[in-house]
């Protein structure tokens, strides 16, 4: 039972890191960023190719995280920026970007799964009957570190305060003279870096492939809806809840339908509260 919960926490941390990236972007720009999965994939492949070329894992990981940030900002500059006045077109553009990014990965690296090696591959943490492979422990540590860093950024810096202002009320923030474009790029940069962290952290347990992030992305969207679109701490809490639910479902009902348990939660929320569980700001979702 404790083992299952530990697995749930592992999944939850993964979902939280991905979901925070999604919700941040949603908060400032109202875009359901399906392309985030593509960002994660490209970050993972970058890590793989740098590490495959012989660089130490830490260097490869940093390269992957940087690549995540770069690609994410590129999606904003090249595509999302142009539909800021037409939110109805956002899902279509996001899906188009996902199609492009995943197939770029397919084109560059082929469809076969790649294995990402880490220095902590063979580490196994044990406490009584509960065991946790090093790669999973590393993910939990990385997730906590990056979320704490994000928290400090949002609460302690003027940059973070500006971003929160934009998320709360875009028009008012613009009137106060906050440079909107920079905020958009910054949100995508942070989301991309977090996507990179997710890729580096869970690539080694799973295989690196063009479709590695599909399931995670769907679960992350459930987390975002669960926590309220636009809410960072809602995403963290929602991530842990969903991780534990999926972990329990996989262990006691059926592993094959792991992500279906997330869907059940989503349906429940939408039936009970079509507007999401927690509305974080007055803006209507349309």
């Amino acid at each position: 039972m404790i083992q299952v919960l530990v697995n749930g926490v592992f999944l939850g941390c993964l979902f939280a890191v991905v979901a925070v990236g999604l919700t941040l972007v949603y908060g400032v720009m109202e875009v359901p960023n399906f392309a985030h999965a593509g960002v994660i994939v490209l970050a993972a492949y970058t890590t793989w190719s740098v590490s495959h070329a012989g660089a130490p894992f830490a260097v490869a990981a940093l390269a992957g995280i940087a690549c995540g940030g770069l690609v994410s900002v590129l999606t904003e500059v090249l595509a999302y920026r142009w539909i800021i006045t037409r939110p109805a077109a956002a899902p279509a553009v996001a899906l188009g970007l996902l199609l492009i990014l995943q197939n770029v990965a397919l084109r560059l690296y082929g469809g076969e799964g790649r294995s990402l090696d880490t220095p902590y591959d063979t580490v196994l943490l044990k406490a009584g009957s509960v065991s946790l492979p090093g790669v999973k422990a590393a993910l939990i540590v990385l997730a906590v570190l990056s979320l704490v860093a994000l928290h400090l950024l949002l609460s302690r810096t003027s940059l973070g305060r500006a971003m929160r202002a934009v998320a709360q009320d875009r028009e008012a923030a613009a009137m106060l003279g906050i440079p909107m474009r920079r905020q958009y790029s910054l949100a995508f940069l942070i989301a991309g870096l977090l996507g990179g962290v997710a890729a580096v952290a869970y690539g080694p347990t799973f295989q690196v492939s063009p479709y590695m992030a599909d399931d995670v992305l769907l679960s992350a969207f459930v987390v975002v809806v669960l926590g309220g679109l636009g809410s960072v701490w809602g995403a963290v809490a929602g991530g842990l809840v969903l991780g534990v639910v999926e972990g329990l479902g996989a262990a006691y009902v059926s592993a094959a339908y792991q992500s279906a348990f997330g869907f059940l939660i989503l349906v429940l929320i939408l039936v009970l509260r079509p507007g999401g569980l927690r509305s974080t700001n007055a803006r209507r979702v349309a």
Partner: protein
Amino acid sequence: MRSRTAAALTASAVLISTAACGSGGGSGDDTTVKIGAILSMSGIYSTLGAPQKKALQMGVEDLSKQGFTVAGKKRTMAISYADDKSDAATTGVTQLRELVQAKKLPVIAYGLGSDTYVPQLKRKPVAMLNLIDSVYPSILRLSPHFWRVRGDSPTYVPGCFYYAKRQLGIKSVSVITAKGEGYGEGLTQLVNKFAPAEGIKVAASTQFPVGSTDYSNAIRTAVAAKPDAVYLSSVTAVILPVLKQLRQSGYTGPVIHSAGINPNQAKDILGAQFNSIMKDNYDCAGTLPTTSDNPAAKSFAAAYQARYNEYPQDLTMWAHDFPFIVAAAMAKAGTTTDSAKIEKALAEIPIPSGTVSGWIAGDGKLFTERMARTASEVTTWCSNKQTLASAMTFDVNNGTVVQPNLKKDVCS
């Protein structure tokens, strides 16, 4: 009104022009015999299809050197290759229609997805020779037009446990199965049948959905039963990631499977730690050309390795022999185009000369009930050499291991 009619006409034109794109047409050269091959050259099973194509090309070249005669005319062979992208139901069946209905080829070699081809075979029958699918229950029951150029799982799974009991002293085994993957599910059925026959208890049997990436639940239950060995049921690309997580979870005992993993694949899929992960691995499947005692197979293996710089799997030698088998059947049938007559001849041909696989004839004929087979083998991983070595060769008769040949000093 006019604009709408015009739009309808434009739409029709679009429909016609998309249909007319691409190029068709066959060659008028009647000394070149054309046959087809649908292989998984990309996607998850590309570890099978890509080497098959290479071996088929070598087979066609070797056949041209030897030459063959049908209806008094000397012929050469050419194969139209099609990629099913590891998705027989979507891409493979389209390719089959292309090869059979548009190109009118009389014989098709193929890999996976037998059941998906059955409805199309009912509409347009053609001889289809399978080069790899040893799944249990046999594909041959699905259609009378299916033939198999290799032995099936029941001809090698019993050897796993014969060896495991005598050489490894194993009394219990846990099985981890890729659910939804036919080969793996068939293997598990056979393990449940043949392990107890050797007095080995199945301690736990767990599953993970094929396509999933986190196997921790299946691994945990399998290892918790404290088995002497773990058997992994599925193909190479599916079980290697499981093997990696199994070792990461701390399991150090023997691992048995029937996936035909070769050193290149181990390195590609497992990464830098492949040598330690592959330790204490036992693979029971068809004989490998590299470890074979048969000189023809050995020299083929050497030629393949020299040419492509990769380890030749068991399926390469079967693929190499495929053009020879078709040529022999065509020669006997006296036709290069009539699929029904060629099929009839397949049932009657002896082992064709020029083949390298070491076929085991039944009653002097290559095919027994539409199956041709070679000997089977248990191989093990040698960490000191970072490669495979033969530990035992054998044949199976009615579920019992016969002619076992245990090797000594396997890894030295």
